[in-house]
């Protein structure tokens, strides 16, 4: 593992700098936060397509007899029932019902392809390996590149490079040939738009990114736009909205617990999650909209109409597609209904906010 003071670079580092990116440190990597500007990049993704370098995320392969059963010991999803060529969003759990990470798992036929959050990937490896029997191996491929192409025109652009992607639906996963070599392509992402994530060896990342950016429909977008897009889509960010102290039920992620898994609750922390499910959680993660234009940021405390403590904001930004501030936050369960009026502490003054259905911007997946 890298020393704390050593900043890692992604395979496309030189390309980002040549495109005028502002680079920032994120999870130990130098990453592009923006190129021309967050709002322009965000809106281009919603109307055309954007390329995101997410190579800081961890790719790994799980293989061996009984791999799916073994992974189920620590994740909430139905992995045994995940068909070849399909991907699933799932939660890696600790013994107390807290979330160690949220991740994607794809069945590539004979082995499983995992995509882990950058800041969690090393901890995830150790945690999953603790639960693997002999014969099942988890192999990190952390030096590989991961390129996301997101937006309503992503499908048309990628089809010109890889015709096999044309028939893919949301959450399909294939291994195919792209720019002269093998690549793993999933139809998924983190923006609420249709799109793909493409994993491939680092040395071919530049050729793929260059080919994609040659198409005028695609522009590069940084982590800034990625954050505002995911927040509009109501998608939680690990470390902000979910962590080892949050329970999947209170986080609104009950959908990530497989039907069969909800019968048996036989994953790490299952008893605690079942209790929250059966009895109802004490707090819930909700969408919040502010009345004015001032963004309410993570860490702002919330009070109810009587001024009593109501919760805390965990993510907040200005939503370019809505031209208004939005936030996610945990509130007391009795205050989680849509339309509930709350107030956030904004520099010592109350900022009126209202509980709002998620997502803020409708998902447009290729189902």
């Amino acid at each position, binding site marked *: 593992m890298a020393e704390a003071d050593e900043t890692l670079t992604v395979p496309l580092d030189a390309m980002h700098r040549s495109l005028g990116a502002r680079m920032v440190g994120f999870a130990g990597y130098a990453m592009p936060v923006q190129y021309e500007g967050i*709002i322009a990049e965000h809106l281009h993704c919603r109307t055309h397509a954007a390329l995101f370098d997410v190579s800081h995320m961890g790719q790994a392969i799980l293989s061996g007899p009984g791999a799916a059963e073994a992974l189920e010991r620590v994740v909430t999803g139905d992995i045994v029932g995940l068909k070849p060529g399909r991907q699933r969003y799932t939660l890696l759990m600790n013994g107390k019902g807290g979330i160690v990470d949220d991740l994607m798992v794809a069945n590539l036929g004979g082995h499983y392809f995992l995509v882990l959050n950058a800041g969690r990937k090393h901890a995830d490896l150790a945690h999953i390996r603790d639960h693997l029997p002999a014969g099942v191996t988890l192999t990190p491929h952390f030096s590989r590149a991961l390129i996301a192409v997101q937006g309503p025109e992503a499908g048309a652009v990628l089809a010109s490079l890889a015709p096999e992607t044309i028939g893919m639906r949301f959450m399909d996963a294939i291994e195919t040939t792209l720019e002269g070599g093998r690549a793993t392509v999933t139809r998924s992402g983190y923006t609420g738009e249709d799109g793909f994530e493409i994993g491939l060896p680092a040395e071919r990342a530049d050729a793929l990114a260059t080919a994609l950016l040659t198409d005028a429909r695609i522009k590069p977008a940084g982590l800034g736009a990625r954050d505002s897009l995911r927040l509009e889509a109501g998608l939680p960010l690990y470390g902000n909205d979910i962590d080892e102290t949050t329970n999947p039920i209170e986080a609104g992620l009950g959908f990530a617990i497989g039907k069969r898994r909800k019968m048996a609750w036989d994953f790490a922390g299952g008893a605690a999650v079942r209790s929250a499910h059966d009895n109802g959680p004490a707090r819930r993660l909700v969408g919040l909209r502010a009345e004015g234009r001032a963004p309410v940021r993570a860490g702002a405390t919330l009070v109810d109409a009587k001024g009593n403590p109501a919760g805390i904001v965990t993510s907040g930004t200005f939503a370019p597609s809505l031209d208004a501030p939005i936030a996610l936050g945990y509130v007391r369960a009795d205050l989680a209904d849509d339309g509930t009026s709350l107030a956030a502490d904004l520099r010592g003054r109350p900022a009126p906010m209202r509980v709002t259905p998620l997502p803020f911007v409708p998902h447009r997946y290729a189902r």
Partner: protein
Amino acid sequence: MTETRYTKDHEWVRLDGDIATVGITDHAQTALGDVVFVELPEAGRAVAEGEACAVVESVKAASDVYAPLAGTVTESNADLAADPAAVNKDPESGAWFFRMRLAGRDGFDTLLSAADYQTFVQSL
């Protein structure tokens, strides 16, 4: 006659008589990125040198703007409420933040000259 000076907090200060007009520099708006909201002080507010008295919000973060010198706020730029993005387009002129009557003229000369501010920015 007017003269413009700068602070290490990336504000510009333009003095006209005993009224100082304050805004943020082009370097500051570039570093902030897209400005989406500006909170300005009310006229009549007395401010100490270095006191946080305005807030500029980009998509990603909020940043304080400080009173460069002691004085009393006389006016703030109401146009920025409707068009905060003006801070990105015209930071050192039309998108001024507030005006203040300085408590004394002496402090103004201690602020950075344009050349010294450029040297400071290049050292960052």
